[in-house]
């Protein structure tokens, strides 16, 4: 029982962060049809930007958060403007490769400026642990779930209620029609990348808080693929469900079977999903196949 509670807590925390990372990925795919292999590096860059503002420059937490958000937004917009816009209309392989190149570049830049050793960062979330149904669960994991839930809800409300959110959904649905209604598709593309940068920043900081600020944050990014394939490439609720399932599955495999197996089980799930239900749980069934 206590093991189960621990698995649930750790798995949900991982899943919540995965969902946040996947959210950015899905936003970009939905709005611009770009598969972003650099999503993990966005996490990495976000965490380091926050680290710079909060620890290196010694800014107060609230200001550091604002600085982080602004920088993440700028990076997102720059990437869209400088790298993805010239690639409009190219084949999928070219677009995939350009984001792979971007991921290599971003990781190298982070390494140049900050080195490879993990950076100690004062814990943002309280570190104690609580006793939950006989299991000792760190408070910060529970708070991660809470923060992610709040952020994901905020994003959902943004898409449902705000003018920009509705415009984004319109562009995702039908670019041509959205354009005729006077929506600037370019601005929406930029906004998708900026929001992806921000959600990756939040995911990166949360992940850094429960582990450490180092290069391994980027490796976490590859797990986005099982999550989005499971949830559906173009579904925002799918990222949450997919994130939670993959997070729990990974944690359960690691606890009950073999920690090594836990690293590969998401990819096994990925292959199975692709073979059985390629558009995922919530994805649109508009998949190209022959």
């Amino acid at each position, binding site marked *: 029982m206590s093991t189960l509670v621990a698995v649930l807590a750790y798995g949900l925390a991982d899943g919540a962060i995965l969902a946040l990372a996947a959210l950015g990925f899905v936003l970009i795919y939905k709005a611009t049809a770009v598969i972003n292999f650099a999503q993990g590096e966005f996490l990495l860059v976000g965490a380091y930007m926050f680290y710079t503002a909060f620890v290196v420059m010694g800014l107060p937490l609230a200001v550091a958060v604002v600085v982080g958000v602004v920088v993440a937004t700028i990076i997102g917009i720059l990437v869209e403007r400088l790298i993805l816009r010239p690639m409009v209309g*190219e084949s999928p392989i070219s677009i995939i490769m350009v984001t792979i190149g971007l991921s290599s570049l971003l990781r190298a830049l982070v390494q140049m400026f900050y080195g490879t050793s993990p950076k100690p960062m004062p814990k943002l979330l309280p570190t104690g642990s609580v006793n939950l149904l006989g299991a000792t669960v760190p408070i910060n994991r529970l708070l991660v779930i809470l923060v992610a839930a709040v952020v994901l809800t905020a994003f959902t409300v943004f898409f449902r209620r705000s003018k920009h959110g509705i415009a984004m959904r319109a562009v995702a649905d039908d670019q041509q029609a959205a354009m005729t209604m006077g929506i600037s598709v370019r601005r929406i593309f930029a906004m998708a990348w900026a929001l992806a940068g921000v959600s990756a920043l939040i995911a990166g900081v949360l992940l850094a808080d429960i582990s450490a600020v180092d290069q391994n944050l980027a490796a976490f990014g590859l797990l986005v693929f099982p999550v989005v394939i499971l949830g559906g490439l173009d579904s925002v609720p799918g990222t949450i469900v997919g994130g939670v399932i993959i997070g729990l599955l990974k944690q359960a495999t690691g606890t009950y079977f073999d920690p090594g197996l836990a690293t590969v089980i998401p990819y096994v799930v990925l*292959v199975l999903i692709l073979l059985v239900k390629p558009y995922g749980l919530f994805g649109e069934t508009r998949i190209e196949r022959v």
Partner: protein
Amino acid sequence: MAQTATGIHHRSYSSELRLRATRAEYLRLGLMLVLLIVVPFVLDNYWMSIANTILIAVIGAVGLNILVGYTGQISLGQGGFLAVGAYSSVILSDRIGLPTPLAIAFAVVLTAVVGTFFGLPGLRLKGLYLAIATLASQQIIEFLIRRDYGGFLTGGLGYINVDRFSFLGFEIGGRAVFERQWYVILAVLAVLAVMAARNLFRTGLGRSFMAVRDQDIAAEAIGVNLTRAKLTAFAVSSGFVGLAGALTAHYSEVVSWEKFTLEVSILYLAMIIVGGLGSIAGAVYGAIFMTLLPVVIRNLANALDSVMPFLGSQLPAVQNAVFGLVIILFLIIEPRGLNRLWERVKEYFRFWPFRY
């Protein structure tokens, strides 16, 4: 046959079927051969080892280009297939005791089979989804090698030492001749691989690959068997890759999983993108370019050490940054790669003094 300013005018079928039509093309072929023969006489051991690495990369890149450039099937699983070739060849030759060339041949077949198996998702999936599916196959193959259940592969060591290449009493010699003897073997195989690939696309099978890439539904309508074409493309391509993997193992005389990670898959994709998708010559240029790039940066960093010590101290990061930048810049500025640049140079001279 006549060569005019507007192109080549063939007067007989045999002249049209020839691989090379003009005198300039024969001249270039001659130059290439001379270059290949001269290389071992002018380079020292260090540069010979790089030349050998390039030759192996050429085989792998040509193989990947058959799949990605000619058939339009994205694969991020190259590293895994290289690993299958390397491990199977070593196990067959060193553990089971097959003669090495035979072991390599079996490794090629086995990799083709494994590649075909992982190509199965390609029957249902295209583009982005196939890229993600092959990413998963890469992760799964890498995991199986790394975990090595039952210690069958590396016996828990994480690596296998490979015996020195020998066949029918001939054995690769020591330090002084090691690189040069390997060069001969690898150069012959690389030339054969390039020729095989070049000719493949003059056959019906090769043409069907390109038809699948360009418009799969139309291809099916004109009678191309899509299932067969796609799976054969995976098989042929993985065969080349298996050969490259097996040669890597026997040449470097050690195999371990670190040589077959996702980064390797990406490196090979970068080779064919930078060289030019859907062009055999491009795959060769790309393999040369991407193999030389880190070497050149390292030498540059050493040379500039007194002026810019930053370059040397941050060497791996600088190499990765340049790697990423090269991919991005090529895709944005010249998506058809080095091969297209070379064609443009040729056109410039052909049309001079006009611009078109």
